[in-house]
């Protein structure tokens, strides 16, 4: 019986690599469903056959736990996202443009739906730029759309996930990795669903996540690990 | 015998109402006659079950097709219907249209498909689609289709209106034979008095939705003959008494007189109906021997009507009652008066049966 994972879209790439390693190692088949976290919650409420839910935030696993769908003591942060301000034009100085509000559109994820969005709003609040920029915001439903707004040049700059820029050559002008003190950590939590709590495959996968190889994959994709953040603080 | 008993009262959209309570004969051809808009099509549609009518009664050959609310569905009524417009299926070729009928033909002996196609002259058109046919060609295919369903009543709504005279002359006798031999009744809507008098055994005359007259064609012939007052005619029932192949004539006995008419292959004893147009009857005081007019019948003047364009003379002739239309000048010249004895002359070639 395959292991069914529901994974927030932004974590697709690292999870794919992790699953590959896991399957090779254990022979256990894994099926990954990608999607928006909110959708997974609705689906889990209505009998979706998932075993573990890797959310894009902390609120949703908690809500599932409270609604009685999550197994107690299985909520745990599996990765921490990093926010970046980015422009597709290599000649743009993103920090300067943000300060002067001299752009047409600023892309960010919808703060109601995506933690990257609320993080971006916090950054703007910290920098006192909300009023100056709000009329120029364009919001993506998720961080992927936000990235596309910027990448297609329709928004001159935007708050994207650092993980989205991994492997793409950048310079110091058009990319600003936002200091973590400007926004609350974007902790992405997972939860095991109650009906799957006893499955050996679930346990095996959670164990595997603790190993070095998957942890390396996560950091390589631009995420931090909870322990490392703690260390950094 | 497929007698048709009808009783309906059918209002159509406010201003028109068709009221018919009648019995139509179960064999032969019944002509339905009436002005444009008098309800002929509506009557045929009711009989076919296409025009619903609350509370009507329709009994065909003893079988109730409708009685009050119980109504036999149209496809369970054994009718062949030639619509006033040809109404071929546009998605089928002429052949497809015919096959549609022959595949579903009612059981029983039926005329040969090949014969029907030949008679109607549509053999070369079979692969064409309706939009590739001329008006008359479409109508002929529609007639063939209605015959091929092998119905027990034929409903024909001006089937020959789109056809040329020659074609009509070919099809008319065929329909006549069909009605006589297969013994299915035929309701035949037409505007043509000559078609009517030639074909119909019995007639139903509609006027503004009401039955104006009905009965055997000889019974209604006076009304029918006067239905177009300017072109009156008389109908004489007759029986063939002799056949003269040499002269290509037959001699028929009508009332007390013998009349000659063209031989169209009639056998002795056959009953025929002669239509004598009033304008074809001339009058003479003496009986002329040196003219080409074969039929010279002693007669007595019964009545004289003055019309806008001449005199209409009602005659008691030895051949039966006859109308003669003559000019006022001739009437004066002959000093015509009621009771006068004279001779009615009828060209045999002007006689049709």
């Amino acid at each position: 019986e395959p292991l069914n994972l529901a994974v927030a879209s932004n974590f697709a790439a690292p999870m794919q690599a992790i699953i590959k390693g896991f399957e090779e190692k254990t022979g256990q088949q894994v099926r990954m469903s990608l999607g928006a976290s909110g959708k997974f919650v609705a689906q889990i409420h209505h009998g979706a056959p998932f075993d573990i839910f890797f959310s894009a935030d902390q609120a949703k696993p908690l809500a599932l736990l409270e609604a009685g769908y999550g197994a107690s003591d299985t909520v745990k942060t599996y990765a921490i996202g990093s926010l970046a301000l980015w422009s597709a034009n290599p000649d743009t100085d993103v920090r300067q443009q943000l300060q002067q509000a001299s752009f047409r559109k600023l892309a960010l994820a919808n703060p109601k739906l995506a933690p990257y969005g609320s993080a971006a709003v916090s950054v703007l609040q910290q920098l006192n730029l909300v009023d100056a920029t709000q009329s120029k915001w364009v919001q993506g439903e998720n961080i992927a759309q936000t990235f596309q707004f910027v990448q297609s040049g329709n928004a001159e700059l935007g708050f994207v996930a650092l993980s989205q820029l991994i492997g793409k050559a950048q310079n110091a002008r058009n990319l600003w990795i936002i200091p973590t003190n400007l926004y609350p950590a974007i902790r992405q939590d997972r939860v095991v669903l109650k009906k799957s709590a006893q499955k050996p495959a679930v346990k095996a996968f959670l164990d595997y996540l603790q190993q070095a190889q998957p942890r390396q994959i996560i950091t390589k994709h631009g995420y931090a690990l909870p322990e490392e953040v703690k260390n950094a603080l | 015998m497929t007698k048709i008993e009808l009783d309906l009262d059918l209002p159509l959209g406010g201003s028109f109402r068709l009221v018919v309570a009648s019995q139509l004969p179960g064999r032969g051809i019944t002509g339905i006659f009436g002005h444009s808009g008098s309800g002929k099509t509506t009557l045929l549609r009711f009989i076919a079950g296409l025009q619903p009518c609350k509370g009507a009664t329709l009994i065909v050959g003893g079988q109730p097709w409708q009685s009050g609310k119980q109504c036999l569905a149209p496809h369970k009524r054994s009718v062949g219907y030639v619509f006033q417009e040809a109404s071929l299926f546009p998605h089928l070729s002429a052949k497809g249209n015919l096959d549609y009928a022959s595949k579903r033909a009612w059981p029983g002996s039926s005329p040969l498909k090949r014969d029907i196609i030949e008679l109607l002259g549509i053999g070369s058109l079979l692969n064409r689609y309706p939009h590739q046919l001329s008006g008359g060609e479409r109508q002929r295919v529609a007639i063939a289709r209605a015959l091929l369903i092998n119905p027990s009543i034929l409903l024909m709504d001006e089937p020959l209106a789109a056809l040329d005279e020659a074609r009509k002359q070919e099809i008319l006798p065929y329909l006549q034979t069909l009605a006589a031999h297969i013994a299915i009744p035929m309701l035949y809507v037409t505007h043509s008095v000559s078609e009517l008098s030639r074909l119909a055994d019995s007639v139903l005359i509609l006027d503004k939705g009401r039955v104006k007259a009905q009965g055997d064609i000889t019974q209604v012939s006076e009304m029918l003959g006067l239905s177009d007052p300017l072109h009156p005619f008389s109908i004489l029932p007759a029986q063939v008494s002799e056949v003269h192949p040499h002269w290509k004539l037959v001699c028929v006995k009508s009332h007390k007189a013998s009349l000659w008419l063209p031989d169209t292959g009639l056998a002795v004893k056959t009953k025929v109906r002669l239509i004598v147009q009033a304008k074809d009857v001339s009058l003479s005081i003496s009986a002329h021997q040196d003219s080409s007019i074969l039929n010279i019948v002693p007669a007595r003047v019964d009545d004289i009507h003055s019309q806008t364009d001449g005199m209409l003379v009602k005659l008691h002739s030895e051949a039966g009652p006859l109308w003669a239309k003559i000019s006022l000048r001739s009437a004066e010249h002959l000093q015509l008066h009621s009771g006068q004895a004279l001779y009615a002359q009828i060209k045999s070639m002007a006689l049709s049966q």
Partner: protein
Amino acid sequence: MPFNPEDMGAIWLTLKLASVVTLILLIISTPLAWWLSQTRSWIKGPITVIVALPLVLPPTVIGFYLLMLMGPNGPVGQFTQAAGIGLLPFTFWGLVVGSVCYSLPFVVQPLYNAMSAVGARPLEVAATLRAGPWERFFTVVLPLCKTGFLTAAVLGFAHTVGEFGVVLMIGGNIPQETRLVSVQIYDHVEALNYSQAHWLSATMLVFSFVVLLALYSLTAAKKSVGGQHDKD
């Protein structure tokens, strides 16, 4: 760029779904459209509108409501469980139900229009030629509505292939089972695998173009006469 096995699975699943859904849609819509085209009842208007109504909600939201209905606590779910079918969401047949609901108007409407245009006369003629209601339908209405059926099938098929909001919601994006090409392309785009997305999109476009064109030519090749009732 060759496809990965997941893509292949998604393509196969999509074709299967689109074919099944189109078939079911035609089967459901034909009587519905026929009834709408023939009835004089006052409920004709409301029913027509109700058929089109799901369109005004975003597909994901429709999916959400379908999920509630078909879930273990929903009335449909209770029924399917009682009937021994089990639960529909997250199964192929769940996708079928969802797609059928959502694409229904695109199939009913062209059929309804085509059927209304047939008019009474050909049916009357067929009735006098001894064809009962069913026969009339199959021998007259169907052939005269060929163009309408073609349109209905094309719209139904294409819309099912492309639709993903409903399918994502009630399907759960499970590989081999409910992951369709549309979802797969969406995933590729979301995961920023653009070249993969382009490739799959182009394939879908070319493939659908060929399928639809073939369907179209096939229908148009036979004498197309529907609607042209008479020429002089």
